[in-house]
C-alpha cells in the first residue's frame, strides 16, 4: 500500500465537488468498486463447472486481440456450431481488463487475455473455472501450458492456453558474426546508441531475469515477483542502459524499420520482427541467450457471467485444435500451444514451424519466463513485492 496523507483542504474540495460526485456514483467502475476481495482468494473459485457441452446459444461475444478472430476460422466455426461470433478488439491488456469488469457484464463470453492481465481478471472475480475434460485438445497442449501459474490457481483452470511467443534477442548478423550468448550485449557500452528495447514496463522483468543470473546475490527467483531491493537493482540496471538506447520501440513495425535501416543492431524483439525482416533479406537473426527470455502467453478465459457458455466451450475446444492453432500461428506470427500444429504450419507456410520455434524441445521452452501481472502480494502471500503500478511509475522514470 502506498502511504496516504490526509489534508485539511480535502474537505473543502469534497463540498465543491458534491455535484460532480452525484454524477460519479452512477458510473459503472465506481458502482462495482467494492466487489474485489483484497488478498488472495479467487471470488469465483467455487462456481460450478458444466459436465457436458449443451446446445449452442446461437451467438458468442469475444474480447480478442486483433487477428484472433479471422474469418478463415470464424466462418467454419459458425457453420459447424451455429454460434454467430462477434468480436471486440481492445488495444491493451488494461482495456481488456476494463471490458471484462463485472464478470464481462453479462455481455462478453470469452477474453483472449495475455499473462499480464490474467491474474488481475482472476482475482477480480471476472472469470470462472473451466472444465478441461470438455476441451479434447487440451491434452495435446505443451505440458507447461496445460496448468501454468498465470491461469491456473489451486488446480482450477480459469481458461485454456492459446498461443505464445518469446521475447528474443534480435541482432544484426553483420555486427555479430556469431550469435551473442548473453543479454549483456544490450547493457554493454560497445553498442551505444544502437540498442532498442520495447517501451513497456514489463521490460523491468527482462532486466530482473538478466540480474537473476548475473547477480545471484540478489536472490531473484521470479522476475515478476520482485522485492523492493531486487526491483531497485533492476531499475538501476535499466537506467544505466538508457544512454545506450537509440529508441524504446512502441510498435513491431517501428523496430523492423530500425533494423532495416541499420539504425539499431541489437535489441529485444518478437519472432514476428525476425521473420518479417528475414523475408526482406535483412541481415538479422535472433537467439534466446543463456539467461533465458521473457515471453507472452495468451489464454481464452471464460467470463464469470458469460451469457453463452455452450458456445464459449465450443470455441475454446475449436481454437485448441491443431488446425486452428496452426492457422493462427502463421497468420498472427506466434507459437501454437498445441504440439500437433507444427506439421500443419509447414503446409500453410513452408518453414514457419521452425521460424516460430514450434518444433523446439522442452528445454527451449523452459528458458521462457511467461508474463504475469506483478502483484503486491507476490502471489505467495508474502506481501512484500512491488505492484505493477509502481513498475509503470519506475518505467516512466527510466525512459525519461
Amino acid at each position, binding site marked *: 500500500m502506498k502511504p496516504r496523507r490526509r489534508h485539511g483542504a480535502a474537505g473543502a474540495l469534497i463540498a465543491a465537488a458534491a455535484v*460532480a460526485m452525484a*454524477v460519479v456514483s452512477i458510473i459503472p467502475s465506481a458502482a462495482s468498486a467494492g466487489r474485489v476481495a483484497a488478498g488472495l482468494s479467487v471470488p469465483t473459485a467455487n462456481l460450478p463447472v458444466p459436465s457436458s457441452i449443451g446446445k449452442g446459444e446461437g451467438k458468442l461475444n469475444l474480447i480478442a486481440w486483433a487477428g484472433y478472430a479471422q474469418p478463415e476460422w470464424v466462418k467454419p466455426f459458425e457453420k459447424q456450431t451455429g454460434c454467430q461470433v462477434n468480436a471486440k478488439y481492445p488495444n491493451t*491488456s488494461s482495456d481488456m481488463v476494463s471490458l471484462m469488469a463485472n464478470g464481462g457484464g453479462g455481455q462478453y463470453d470469452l477474453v483472449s487475455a495475455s499473462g499480464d492481465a490474467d491474474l488481475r481478471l482472476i482475482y477480480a472475480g471476472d472469470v470462472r473455472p473451466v472444465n478441461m475434460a470438455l476441451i479434447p485438445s487440451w491434452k495435446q497442449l505443451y505440458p507447461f501450458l496445460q496448468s501454468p501459474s498465470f491461469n491456473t490457481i489451486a488446480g482450477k483452470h480459469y481458461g485454456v492456453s492459446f498461443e505464445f511467443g518469446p521475447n528474443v534477442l534480435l541482432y544484426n548478423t553483420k555486427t555479430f558474426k556469431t550469435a551473442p550468448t548473453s543479454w549483456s550485449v544490450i547493457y554493454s557500452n560497445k553498442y551505444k546508441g544502437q540498442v532498442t528495447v520495447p517501451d513497456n514496463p514489463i521490460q523491468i522483468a527482462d532486466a530482473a531475469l538478466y540480474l537473476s543470473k548475473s547477480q545471484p546475490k540478489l536472490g531473484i527467483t521470479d522476475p515478476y515477483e520482485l522485492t523492493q531491493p531486487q526491483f531497485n537493482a533492476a531499475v538501476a540496471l535499466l537506467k544505466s542502459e*538508457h544512454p545506450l538506447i*537509440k*529508441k524504446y520501440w512502441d510498435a513491431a513495425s517501428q523496430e523492423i524499420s530500425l533494423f532495416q535501416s541499420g*539504425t539499431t543492431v541489437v535489441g529485444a524483439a518478437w519472432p514476428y520482427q525476425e521473420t518479417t525482416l528475414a523475408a526482406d533479406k535483412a541481415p538479422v537473426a535472433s537467439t534466446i541467450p543463456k539467461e533465458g527470455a521473457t515471453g507472452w502467453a495468451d489464454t481464452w478465459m471464460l467470463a464469470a457471467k458469460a451469457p453463452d457458455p455452450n458456445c464459449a466451450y465450443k470455441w475454446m475446444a475449436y481454437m485448441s485444435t491443431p488446425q486452428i492453432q496452426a492457422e493462427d500461428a502463421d497468420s498472427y506470427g506466434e507459437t501454437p500451444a498445441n504440439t500437433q500444429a507444427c506439421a500443419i504450419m509447414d503446409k500453410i507456410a513452408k518453414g514457419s514451424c521452425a521460424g516460430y520455434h514450434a518444433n523446439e524441445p522442452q528445454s527451449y521452452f523452459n528458458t521462457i519466463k511467461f508474463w504475469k501481472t506483478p502483484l503486491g502480494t507476490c502471489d505467495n502471500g508474502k506481501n512484500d513485492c512491488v505492484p505493477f503500478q509502481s513498475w*509503470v511509475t519506475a518505467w516512466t522514470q527510466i525512459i*525519461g
Partner: protein
Amino acid sequence: MSTIREERPMGGMARVSAALWRRTWLRASLTLTPPLAWFLVIYIASLALMLVTAFWTVNPFTNVLEHSWTFTNFDQLFTSTYLTIIARTLEMAALVTVTDAVIALPFAYYMARVASPRGRQLLFTAVLLPLWASYLARVYAWIVILQKGGTLSWAFQQVGLGPVNIGYTNTAMWLVFSYIWLPFMIVPVYGALERIPDSLLEASGDLGARAWRTARSVIVPLALPGIIAGSIFTFSLTLGDFITPLLVGGTNSQFIGNVIYDNIGTANNLPFAATLSLVPIVIMGVYLLGARASGAFEAL
C-alpha cells in the same frame, strides 16, 4: 380582392411565433438551451469528473479505483521525473511556436501583399494541401526522411556535408512538429497582414522610414494579434500531442500526453492520468488569458 389586410384568426403556429417575437428572452433561451445543455453536460461535467478523479487513487493490489480523497497524485506530480517531462513539453511547444512564427511571418507577408492573385491562390493551396493527408502519413514520411541513410542524409552527402543521423531525437521532433503545425500559424498571420491598410505603409514611407523600419514599427505590431492567434494553435497542439514523440522521438522524449497514455493504457491508473491532464489545462488557461490581454482574439 377587396381588402389588403386580411383579418384572420391566428393559427397555433402563428401565435407561438408571435409570442416568441415579442419576448426576446424566451427566444434566446429556447435557442441557447440545447447547445448550452450539451456544453454543460458533455463538456463541463466530464471536465469536473476528471478534476474529481485526480484526487482519488487506485488500489495497487486490486487495481480498483478508491474514492478516498488524497493529494498523493499531486505529490507524485511534483517530483523531478514529471517536472522534467512537463518542462520538456513546454519547451518544445514554445520552440515550435517561435519557429513557425519566424517562418510564417515573411511567408504570409509575401502571400498577402506581394504575390499576384493567382500566385496567392497557388500558395494557399500549397499551405493547406498537406492538411488533406493523414497526420500519420506525414509523420511517417518524416521518419523516412530523417532516419539513418534516409533522404536528408543522402542529400547532405550529395553536397559533401557528410551523413547526418538525426532520426529518433528531439531535433527530429522539433522539425516534424514545426512542419505539421505550420499551416495553423500561416493562416491567421495572413489574415492579420491582409488587413493592414496600404495607406499605413505609404505613410511610413512618406515619413522617411525604410523597409526594415516599416516592418519593425508598423507591420509586426499589426501582425502580432495574428501571430498570437496562430501561436495558440501551434502551442496547444504541440502541448497535447503524444503521437509524434512516440514515432519520431528518441530516448528522453516523453511528453505529458505519453505519460497520460501510459497511465491509462498500461497502468490503468486513471487518477494519476487525470492529475497529469490538469497540467496542460492550467498552462493553456494562463496562455489564453495572456493572449486575450494582448487583443489576439480580435484577429481570430
